[in-house]
């Protein structure tokens, strides 16, 4: 199925969730995150769509004034079509429903996005940091991230300032 047909199918079924945005390109759909779990179940199980593979889940920080975003790349092994879903979160309290029961790889992908950006995936059975240590402070990939001074007594930032390094 082509991208416009898929978009029409989603718009028919969930008319209030699809947000029109001219800044995104062909192949991307921006949706509102309130019914995300229902939409995800529909995308996986509907016989015309059958998106059974979650390829990639990316978190993006769009700058100081903009929101945080989660972008899901979905692909169908049976029908060989793909689509990208964009969901925006409020910067002060980013959260959305978790889809780890629908696509099992969502478990680790969501933990990684939580670790890097602080986006909370509600309903995830075990949401904790995966790459940074458990007692790390801050969300590293956000644009306003500040390094902590020491970690268990070891210096974190660059030292040797007196020798002319940055």
């Amino acid at each position, binding site marked *: 199925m082509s991208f416009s047909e898929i978009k029409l199918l989603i718009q028919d079924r969930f008319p209030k969730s699809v947000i029109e945005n001219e800044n995104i390109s062909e192949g991307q759909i921006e949706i509102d995150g309130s019914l995300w779990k229902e939409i995800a179940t529909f995308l996986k199980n509907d016989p015309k769509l059958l998106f059974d593979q979650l390829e990639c889940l990316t978190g993006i920080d769009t700058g100081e004034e903009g929101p945080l975003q989660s972008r899901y790349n979905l692909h169908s092994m049976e029908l060989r079509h793909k689509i990208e879903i964009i969901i925006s979160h409020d910067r002060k309290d980013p959260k959305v429903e978790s889809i780890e029961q629908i696509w099992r790889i969502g478990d680790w992908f969501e933990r990684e996005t939580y670790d890097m950006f602080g986006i909370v995936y509600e309903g995830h059975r075990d949401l904790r940091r995966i790459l940074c240590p458990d007692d790390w402070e801050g969300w590293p990939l956000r644009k306003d991230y500040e390094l902590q001074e020491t970690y268990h007594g*070891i210096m974190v930032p660059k030292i040797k300032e007196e020798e002319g390094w940055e």
Partner: protein
Amino acid sequence: MGVLENKFNDNIVVGSLDKFLSWSRSTSPWFFQFGLACCAIEMMATAAARHDLERIGMMPRSSPRQADVMIVAGTVTMKMALRVKKLYEQMANPKYVISMGSCATSGGPYWQHGYHVLKGVDLVVPVDVYVPGCPPRPEALIEGLLKLQQLISEERPLTRKIT
């Protein structure tokens, strides 16, 4: 050895106890294969068939309690730094550390924006030989190991040091 030198046949060696101890320690140090990242592959390649490490006496051991030299090969992160210290403390004296590659020496290519990278393993364990490179060639690692052997053979463990 001064007065006794060259007074005997060729099959009699004369020397001080210090020198013999250092000589026997230096010629077969067993290394603790602590491969973390890309440098670990070059360490494995050095121990394999082409640049054989066993011909200079080094044997790979997996447990710290059986090793003399710890080759820290690869980037050390904050999460791993505490474990490196623990493993170093588990080794028995006399022990030596070789820092292989630029990541273990000073943070490597990740020194500028790496929030999770330890900028040099000498912040947690004392290092004897630094081998630069990204990754260092097997020949460079062998040179570092031979320098370590030379360092060990110059130690005088029984002589009291005058400070």
